[in-house]
Every structure is written in structure tokens, then in C-alpha cells.
């Protein structure tokens, strides 16, 4: 940096000039960043440089979890094993039905001459950083473009949709949660196929459905699943359950709120979905 003469310690040479230059650079950067994604390369490079710091920050948490895991008592483990066995039995039973249903679905689709989908591929990623305090609900996950993550990819947890990737780094990726105020997600009501859009509110446990007319067939308890219409999310993943439906006669739209199914404020791991391209199985036969 600059070394001035020590005779006049109060003045730093060319300070104003440097500040002016940096301000201009900042404004140009912000402009470019806001308008386009020109700067993804820079972001990625700096993100890769900051990655070790994120790892270090995350280390105590991991250590704590690891300690917790390795000091669980035998009794607890046996209990958990029993619980998991029972759960697996149940899941397997349901899975059998699912296989049958999938086969039936494929057959029916074939009958209807509709293209059938192959199954989505998933991969588990750990969450390294969550920023859900402010209006923006972002999280950083531990895999990036090196593992094939791409912008717009869907994130789910065991219960439902969590969000989607907005920026891919080399070894990390940043994702926006469905509760972010700037996030909107095309959904359908599972009961009757009514299409609408679920918009984030900035509150972690609430989504809004602002575009439903007063006479729409929707009621509390309805499950909303992804419709796949936006192109980003695969079809049929649960998103939220409708909480309240308030119909105000003077207003054109009903006031509908829903609770996200995914445990947005508790997740430590998420699954990333690679939507397999829609293939026509009939063609290959």
C-alpha cells in the first residue's frame, strides 16, 4: 500500500482519488451484477477462495454432531434401530404399492399415448450456511458445479420442496428457499388439480397464494404439489399445506396462506434433484 513521508502523519497521499476509483468500480460492479449474470465467474472464483473459511466455520458444528453421534448410548441406538426397522417395513410396504402404481401409471400413460417420465436422480448435500434472518432466505450447500449442480436446480428434503439453486460455485452453491419473498413456485392442488402460484412471504413458515379467485375450489388442509410448469421443479413434489382461506367479497382474490411441508428452519441436509429428461419409453421398444 501507500507509504507517505512520515513528516506529515495526518495525510495519506491520493486517498480521495483511490476512494473515488473504488466507488466507481463498485457502482459499475453492482450495475453489471444487477442487470446480468456477467460476474458469475468472479463470484465463483472468490467463492472458491472463501470455501476453506466456510469449512472452518462449519467444523465445530460438525464436530458437535459427530460427538453426539459417537457418544449415543447403546440403549438409545437399539431403540432407534427398532424404530428404523419398523419404519423401513412400513416404507417398503408403501414402496411396493408405489411400484405397482408406477407400472400402472406407465401403462395408462401408454394407453393415453402420453410420454412417460423416467425417475428423477437425487443426491444429498449438506447445508453449510443459512441466511434466513432477513427478508432474503438463502442457504449455501456443500456441492457445486464440480458435482454437476446447475442454476435453477430443485432442492427437496424428506417432506417437501426446500428451494432452488440460484448461483453455482465450484464446490458450493447458493440456493433460495421457497419462503423467500422474491420466490414464486408454480403448484397444483393435489385434490383437484387447480393450478396456482405459491409466493414466499419472508416468513419461514408461511407461503401466500395470492392469485386465487374468491370462488376457487380450495380449502384448509389441501396439499399443494409442484406442477412442473415453471420448468425448474420436477412434477409432484409436495410443497405446502393450505392453512387458511379467507374470502373477502369486495376483493377479486381470496387470501390464502399455506405452511411449507419441508422443515425449512431445521434442515441440515437437502436432496438435489436432477430431473431426468422426459423420454418416450414407447419409442425405444
Amino acid at each position, binding site marked *: *500500500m*501507500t507509504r507517505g513521508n512520515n513528516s506529515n502523519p495526518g495525510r*495519506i497521499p491520493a*486517498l480521495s482519488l483511490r476512494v473515488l476509483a473504488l*466507488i466507481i468500480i463498485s457502482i459499475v460492479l*453492482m450495475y*453489471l451484477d444487477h442487470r446480468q449474470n456477467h460476474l458469475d465467474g468472479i463470484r465463483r472464483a472468490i467463492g472458491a477462495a*472463501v470455501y476453506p*473459511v466456510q469449512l472452518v466455520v462449519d467444523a465445530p458444528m460438525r464436530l458437535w454432531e459427530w460427538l453426539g453421534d459417537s457418544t449415543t448410548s447403546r440403549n438409545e441406538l437399539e431403540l432407534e434401530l427398532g424404530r428404523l426397522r419398523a419404519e423401513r417395513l412400513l416404507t417398503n410396504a408403501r414402496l411396493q404399492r408405489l411400484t405397482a402404481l408406477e407400472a400402472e401409471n406407465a401403462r395408462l400413460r401408454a394407453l393415453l399415448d402420453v410420454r412417460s417420465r423416467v425417475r428423477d436422480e437425487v443426491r444429498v448435500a449438506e447445508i453449510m450456511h443459512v441466511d434466513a434472518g432477513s427478508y432474503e432466505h438463502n442457504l449455501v450447500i456443500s456441492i457445486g458445479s464440480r458435482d454437476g449442480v446447475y442454476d435453477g436446480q430443485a432442492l427437496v428434503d424428506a417432506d417437501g420442496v426446500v428451494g432452488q439453486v440460484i448461483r453455482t460455485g465450484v464446490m458450493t452453491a447458493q440456493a433460495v428457499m421457497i419462503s423467500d419473498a422474491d420466490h414464486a413456485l408454480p403448484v397444483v392442488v393435489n385434490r383437484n388439480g387447480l393450478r396456482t402460484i405459491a409466493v414466499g412471504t419472508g416468513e419461514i413458515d408461511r407461503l401466500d397464494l395470492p392469485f386465487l379467485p374468491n370462488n376457487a375450489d380450495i380449502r384448509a388442509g389441501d396439499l399443494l404439489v409442484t406442477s412442473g410448469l415453471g420448468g425448474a421443479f420436477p412434477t409432484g413434489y409436495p410443497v405446502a399445506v393450505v392453512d387458511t382461506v379467507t374470502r373477502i367479497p369486495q376483493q377479486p382474490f381470496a387470501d390464502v396462506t399455506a405452511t411449507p411441508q419441508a422443515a425449512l428452519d431445521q434442515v441440515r441436509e437437502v436432496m438435489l434433484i436432477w430431473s431426468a429428461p422426459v423420454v418416450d419409453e414407447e419409442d425405444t421398444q
Partner: protein
Amino acid sequence: MSRDRNSRRLPVLITLLVGLMLTIVPLPDAIEAFRPSWLALLLIFWAIQLPRTWSVGTAWFVGVVLDVSYGTLLGQHALALCLIVFATVRFHLLMRVFPLSQLSATIFALLALYQFILYWVNGVAGVSAPAITYWAPVISGTVIWPFFYTFLSGVRYRSRAGG
């Protein structure tokens, strides 16, 4: 000469690194909003102490790193940090002789300016956030400043005595 400068730089770099960790470490929701802007405080401190070595350039670079780790508009934190460090460097001689009450008032003003720039850029870019996320760090930062200052002065004194 260069060894002398290296031994002077290392403690600052370490504090900045620790500051970055404190900035991105997850906190419970209840106190998340009150997380002080550690890096802003650190940069103010070093700009008062060593304004020739650590001034606007460092602040700008730290700001860009902060923008990347927060995922904010690239250049937003850089701009804000750069400006408050500029103000600090301009008045660093005064701030060295300020009594604590005046210094705290100055820190409050600088942090408020910092948050205001972030708020302003957010407004232009169309991102809105509740007011508390802007005000809470200013208050917590001002409250924590005296302890922070004492601690860092100790770090500085020790690192100098050691090097």
C-alpha cells in the same frame, strides 16, 4: 524492512479472517439480527491504528468477499465499507484522541452510515428488508465497541511486542 512489515500484517490478516468467520457462523434466529458487523468494526479499528497500510483498498476487497459470502449485489458491501473506512482514515488522528463517549458516538455514526449505504443500494436494487436488520447491528456494534477496542489494542500491543 519487509520482515517488519510482514510481522505487522499477519495479526491484522488473522483478525480479518476471524472476523469473516464470526460473520458467517450461524446464530440462533433470536440474536441473528443483532450480530454486529464485525468486519466493519475491524476495518475501522485498523484504519484508526494503521491508516497507511489498511485503508480503503483493503476495505473494498473485504467488502467484495463479504458480498460473495452473503450473496448480495457484488460491490454493495465493498462500497459501504470503502466509504466508512475513508471517513475513518480522514479523521483517524482525531479519533485517536477522542474520549470514549465521543468515540462511541463516532462509531455509531459510521455504522449508521454503513447500514444506510446498504439500505440505499438495496432500495435501488429493489430488495426490501425489515428495519430491524439495519438498525440492530448499529446498536450492537456501538455497544460492543469499547470491549472490542480494548481487546484489539491488546492484540496489537502483544503482536508488536512479540515481533
